[in-house]
């Protein structure tokens, strides 16, 4: 066995350039969490089912547990830390709070990133589309009703172009 040599990877996270030395086997999720100390991205299953680790890479919502950090070379990555509007909550975050769309908060970053990617490209998404888009993110606390209501509520802000931190392309 023995560790394969580390590789240098460069990408941007929430608009800020990052350079990391990583083992090729390190996932993007672990890289964000432990190498870059962006612990808002959570790991719930490590096999792409729960969606807690969802981040936005070049405009698309991806499972950062199923992507290696070395694959992010040259990409623009957005995490939950990039959703705030200055110090204030972004429109999705505020809607989540208003609709009690979270309890333990563990799935929440992934829910927010999936919803952000959805509303950034489909601000008119109807309830069925919202439920479909969220069906890849598991929550064990809320029963999802508040989450769906929050995403529907946040649509107006995205339609008005106020969705914070539109994904870099």
């Amino acid at each position, binding site marked *: 066995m023995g560790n394969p040599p580390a590789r240098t990877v460069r990408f941007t996270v929430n608009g800020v350039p990052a350079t990391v030395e990583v083992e090729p086997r390190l996932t993007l999720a672990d890289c964000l969490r432990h190498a870059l*100390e962006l612990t808002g991205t959570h790991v719930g299953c490590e096999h792409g089912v729960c969606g807690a680790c969802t981040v936005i890479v070049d405009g698309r919502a991806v499972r950062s547990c199923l992507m290696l950090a070395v694959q992010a070379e040259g990409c623009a990555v957005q995490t*939950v830390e990039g959703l705030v509007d200055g110090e204030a909550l972004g429109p999705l*975050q505020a809607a989540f709070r208003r609709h*009690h769309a979270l*309890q333990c*908060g563990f799935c929440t970053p992934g829910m927010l990133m999936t919803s952000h990617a959805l509303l950034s490209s489909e601000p008119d998404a109807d309830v069925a589309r919202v439920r479909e888009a*969220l069906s*890849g993110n598991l929550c064990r606390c809320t029963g999802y009703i508040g989450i769906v209501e929050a995403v529907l509520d946040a649509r107006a802000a995205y339609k008005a172009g106020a969705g914070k931190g539109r994904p870099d392309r």
Partner: protein
Amino acid sequence: MTRHDILVGQPVERLEDLRFLTGRGQYVDDRSVDGMLHATLVRSALAHGTIRAIDTAAALALPGVHAVYTAADLGAKVPMIPMRMEANADLARFEQPVLAHGKVRYVGEPLALVVADTPAIAEDAAGLVAAHIEPLPVVLDRTGAERGDTLLFEQAGSNRGLALQALRGDASALDAAFRDAPYTCRRRFKVHRHTAAPMETRGLLAEWDAARQRLTVSGLVKVPFAIRALLATLLGMPESAIDAVESDCGGGFGMRGEFYPEDFLVPFAARRLGRAVKWIEDRNEHLLAITHAREVECELEIACDRDGTIRGLRGQGAYDLGAYIRPNAVTAPRNFAQMAGGPYRIPALHMEVALLVSNKTPAGSYRGPGRFETDCFRERLFDIAAGELGIDRVAFRRHNLLRQDEMPSRLPIVMPYGSGGETDSGNYHETFERCLAEIGWNDKVALAGRQIDGVFHGIAIGCYIEGGGSGPREHARLVYEGDGRVAVHVGSSAVGQGLETIFAQIAADALGLPMDRISAVRHGSSGIVKMGYGSLGSRSTVMGGSAILDAANNLQHAIRTLAAARLGCAPEEVSLEDGLRSAAARGRVLALAGPSGLAGGGIEADGLFENDRRTYSYGSHAAHLTVDAATGQVRLLDYVSVEDVGRIINPMTLHGQVIGAIVQALGGTLLEHLVYDGQGQLLTGSLASYLVPAADDFPVIRSFVLENHPSPLNPLGVKGAGEGGVIPVGGVIANAIASALSSFGVQPDELPLTPPRIWELIRRGNAPVALP
């Protein structure tokens, strides 16, 4: 004390949300310390076998590996994890060692702990540990456990730990009821094995301070003080040398925070190596290692008059508790026996429940422990009995539900523990009638059993009671800070349910303050209060909230006393004004907050609430669903919950709890199942095979919460409400499916009701009808 409720009862947005929504939560894996090492477990790949050798040489030789511990490294006697709730000598024979020695008894049982520089090296090394285990025959069900030709513990002489008895009315009354009743009905039911599956797996960070000989353990949740006490015993350390630090917690549901082998092993390694050690469980490990729940079968029998009056209920059940008796393994079987009668008038009741061991992951307490199972069986039997007697299902329940003038109602005594109790307050008919109205029973009942657009409609209703507010006590401390704000410290633990917000609401109202004058709510960690009893059994609001009220009283008294000394009067003459910013008496006003104020150095007051009686919230659930007879697929069209919780602190968090609990229980009823093969291998070891509900599965849940009957047992009048959403779901759904498929003679007797099982029930139904 006069209380002016401004915040209590309001849908106050949660304080917790600000950090969770911005990625600033502090879950255990979010913490790192310099020089930290990483641990991983080597787990048994066999369900039952004799350990011949564990070879750790290759793992130890890997660069970056600091230690590989097996049972042989733990000293002459391997520490055993004792029972916590209702300890019993008959069951203590089945306690779990922190590392397997001599034998392994389930797939996933810890064999060794590897500690290395990184998680990846630790996992590489774990793969190099070679365990030589000689297979033994496996025990995987009730029949095998009771037959006893293979024993998990030879020295115990049996796979049967104990039989609990719950009795109301004497034995002769019960015999008479069943001998004389014109109608009896006996059925066999089963609930399968499932589990909480919180989104955050478990984890621990243990730090050892050699100079001070102190251990700090982060990631403890639910009952950190109890875990600390046990850890101190097992490590041979004084309790006061261990700090138990509660982290944010990604879902509890009763299963997290019991004392697990890892809770000993990770701190042990930190102390032995003199370094911080972190362990984070992966999802496959989680499904193998966290306590499972629910697996019980029971023959249940009811005796009734022709008019449906229940004379007696009796049953023999058997819980499969897996390979070892875990710290609170008795909770579910005890509740199962005691709550079998639910909110109904059942004059004679006798339940006997055997606790069995088998070669599966140990089982423990999961949201609504025992109550989910027992409610399911009773409500199924009621619908069957009502059908056979030709009595309407609603009329049957209305006839037998306890009336308000029969409260309080005594619960059966559970032996050998001798625990009993009685309900506190309530009107069970109120929630029942409201639930019927909300679901539109009178209109929808006409659809029951009918096929419309190719699917069969079914409807059902069921009732439950939920025990909450378990004692013995809870502590709180309020600190009046120099800036006029108040910090709340409390012994209850947060498991994601929004405890910080409701405690801030309670404290602010009790002190006459706006919400933003509560500077912090700190909970659950040792060092915050003298003692804490954690978060379990729907107790936090009842116990922690009441302790905060007491502390608020004491804080006001302390401030009055100090102000009186300055003002030269008796404390009773002092009035606290302007939101605790000033005190007035005899025409003089004294500033309390600010640099010149009384509270420059802070004023503290402790609070305590003690209780040996439980609160009982209660309610009814109803469901309207369809079943596709060709595929067995169930679609939920409407689901209504009506409950009375005595008093609502925050309707938003309360509805969130109820709806979340219902969906979790719908998962447990229709989707989730921990499946083992014939060798005891868990076949559902990932979230791809262990199916929990997703956002498009159950979008139609409606929750109505009443506060018509406050509990007389605490000053807030609250009752617990964390589990009620779970309890009646299995029975209501099974009955609704029976209602839909009545023309096929389908009578579900076992959960989960997955499409293949329903399809199979249709095909072996005793009243075949041509399929569409």
